[in-house]
């Protein structure tokens, strides 16, 4: 070693740096008691989980005028969250909404970590697809209740613990200059589109997984549909939006993407068109629920219910998503809508992904 073996410079640097570092560390340690005694705090008792007063029988009554805070965990797109918060401020001006917004994967990772740590920080969960939300319901992390507005939500888009707020439609998108554009899902496997189709990766995007579930569980298609796509040279890309970008740039001729994103891009001037599949767009509902351990249970329910009111639905629709209520105006729906049997594909997520990966890799 070649560091000087004696002399003041080292003493000066090392002691002053050490003192600084120790002071920093002590500050960090003293402000984090949880690090030394993780067992001292327990899960915050829920004010209403199991409380008969808020059980389903009475919850149709009007909820109390809210004030205070509510914490929203969501994977809805930022523009939609902004529109909803602006509308909610008119209804509940005394409530301050704290938002944690992240893509579904990150949101799920955070919630899973918080469950393991002992305390979920959010009151309301507003997800993108029913499968990820279903996994919380099956762990009894969601409150069972009935929002006053639930009656206006179509039956296929609700459960005991979560309710659809908006509908995401997986459609076909293709370049404007295409001669003989695809009109249905099977066209994506035709020779005319060899090496020209992009699909989103179900391992990354919840909506893409729902589509995988739909095709795999539908006898007209089956998992073989993906094999035919692959045989035809279809390419998987990471995100739904990347399909759109790739088609717009001319890297692909056509692909599967969400109607709202495609309409937004068309409005900006992107050279693409939507083809509503003749056998139906695959429709995914974006659910809202309230955590059973919510610290602001009443506000949480008030906010969740607001998403189902005509005002909340209008705010959602204003950002281009189809509202779940059919009495609220939304974007043009140019054909049939089909959905997988959600509970069925929830049970078989891992096997479906394995079968898919055997075809497309990753």
């Amino acid at each position, binding site marked *: *070693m070649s560091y000087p073996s004696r*002399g003041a*410079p080292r003493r000066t640097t090392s*002691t002053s*740096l050490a003192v600084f570092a120790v002071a920093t560390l002590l500050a960090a340690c003293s402000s984090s008691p949880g690090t030394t005694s993780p067992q001292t705090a327990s899960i915050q008792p829920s004010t209403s989980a199991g409380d008969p007063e808020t059980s389903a029988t009475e919850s149709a009554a009007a909820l109390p005028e809210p004030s205070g805070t509510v914490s929203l965990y969501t994977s809805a797109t930022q523009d939609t969250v902004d529109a909803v918060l602006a509308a909610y401020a008119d209804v509940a001006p005394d409530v301050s909404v704290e938002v944690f917004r*992240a*893509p579904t994967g990150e949101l799920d990772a955070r919630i899973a970590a918080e469950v393991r740590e002992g*305390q979920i920080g959010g009151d309301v969960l507003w997800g993108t697809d029913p499968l990820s939300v279903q996994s919380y319901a099956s762990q009894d992390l969601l409150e069972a209740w009935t929002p006053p507005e639930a009656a206006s939500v179509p039956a296929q888009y609700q459960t005991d613990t979560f309710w659809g707020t908006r509908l995401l439609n997986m459609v076909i998108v293709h370049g404007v200059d295409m001669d003989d554009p695809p009109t249905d899902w099977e066209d994506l496997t035709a020779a005319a589109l060899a090496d020209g189709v992009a699909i989103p990766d179900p391992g990354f995007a919840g909506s893409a997984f729902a589509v995988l579930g739909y095709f795999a569980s539908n006898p007209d298609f089956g998992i073989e549909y993906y094999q035919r796509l692959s045989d035809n040279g279809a390419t998987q890309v990471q*995100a739904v939006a990347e399909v759109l970008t790739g088609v717009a740039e001319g890297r692909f001729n056509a692909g599967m993407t969400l109607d709202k994103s495609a309409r937004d891009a068309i409005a900006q001037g992107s050279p693409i068109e939507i083809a509503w599949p003749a056998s139906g767009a695959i429709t995914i509902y974006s659910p809202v629920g309230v955590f059973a351990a919510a610290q602001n249970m009443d506000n949480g329910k008030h906010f969740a219910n607001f998403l189902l009111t005509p005002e909340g639905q209008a705010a959602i629709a204003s950002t281009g998503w189809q509202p779940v209520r059919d009495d609220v105006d939304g974007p043009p729906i140019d054909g049939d809508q089909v959905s997988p049997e959600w509970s069925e594909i929830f049970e078989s997520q891992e096997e479906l992904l394995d079968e898919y990966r055997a075809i497309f890799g990753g």
Partner: protein
Amino acid sequence: MADAAGRVGVGRGLALLAAVLSFVVLIAWPLTRLAIEAAGAGTAPVLAALQPEAMEAIGNSLWIAAAVTGLAVAGGLGLALLTEHAAVPGRTIMIVGILFPLLVPDFVSALGWTRAFGPAGLFDRIAGVEIPGLYGPVGIVLVQATGAIPLAYLLIVAGMRSRAEPDLERAARISGADGLTALRTVSLPLLWPVIAAAGGLIFATTMNAFGTPAVLGRPAGFATMTTRIYGDLAFSSSEAAFERVLGLSFLLVAVVLLALAFSDRLGPRIATRGTITGPGLEARPAGRLPLAMAWVFVVLSVVLPLGALLLTALTRAVGLPPLPEHLTLANFGRAVDSRTLPALLNSLLLAGFAAVACVTLGTVAAIAPIGRWRQRWSQVVTIGFAVPGSVLAVGVLLAFGRSLRDTLLIILLAYVAKLWALAQRPIAGAMDRVPIDLSHAARVHGADGRTVLRTVVMPILAPTLAAAGLLVFVFALHEVTISILLYGPSSATLAVAIINLQQLGDPTVTTALAVLLTLLVLACAVPLVALRRSWLHSVLG
């Protein structure tokens, strides 16, 4: 004298204590929390990590990282020798060109390459040429290697300035060695610790990289460890998926540490103690071929991808050709909203504190340990760097979430745990170059400790400390995997703003934000570099 020696011992002891404590709190504790979660599952995580699919991903990650490290170190070393040892016309422009990609956030670098060289990209439009296999392993290696060359270049140049031994090189030349022999027998062995440090960091960074493999690898069905970990993390409320995440993550750490331990043993063991005395070697004119290659590299890897990014940011909608009628500045307006400024301030604050903390910790830990532990410290703190950011964030949330949830401090703790090694390895590599003779000479001439520090030690360490701080700052500013899991209502970072924009699906807006961010860092960096240069000149003459 005995008293002084005793105080030296105390100082070193305190430094050691600080380094060990920091490691325990910042890195060991969060990872232990993760391990506790995994322990309940018994051997399941280990088995999950050894499944055939996982093994394929491990193999992919390994050879990609090895290829990227080899290319980047060779490229960085070649460019460093060119700009430091030869007279290069337009040297400043070349250096700026080489270093510039460091300032470009890596969440758009793959986009820049695909838009420059991919199907329907800039090069395709101009010359009808695209890089075959850009989507796939070839592209992953190319994009990551060119992204890592500036990193290697920066560390090696900083090391050269700390470690230059013009007297030894001159002696070799006088004794009849030609340039190549002097390089092989004198300069490279002297530089080895720096090269190993740079290579180790690049290897660990590449093993950890997620964005580029995800964007370029998916279309080829090409999985790496990080893409598999991310995929499972998204399902991590499922025990089985969480176990796979932990099993693969710990395996990733083990692989990185093994590889680093191996690479650190590759080099020659030398303990020369030259002093920086005489003037630097006369710069010889650069050869035409190296010069041409360097400029081609700058144009292909910097100018074209960045040009493509800039055009993307200026285009009205994705897919429109960059013709004048389609150009607009509107994307910049859409990229910046009322949340961007607070997020930017948070990120700047976090990056600044992280840089100071990591350089401080790196210096403390490089001073403190004695003997073989000086090298081993670099390995030990690399554990934090080797864990994928999102998994580290989960560990930090488990460890500190109860009391620090939603604060800037919890993000800072995660950043320092992650980026400590980024400062530690270069500083440890430069530390053994502080020449004992010079400080002795200064002491003999009556300089007190402070003066020796200011006039002898700091000028030698300064380039490396500055480079390490800059790296930590830029990495912290550009990270997108840690803070997205840890932020709260008042601690949103740039990563949050970036991911929000990305999810809206319009790359023109995301790219506009990346361009703004690059310009901002550039605006901060230019006066710093100018300042440092004049200061260095005044010190080194």
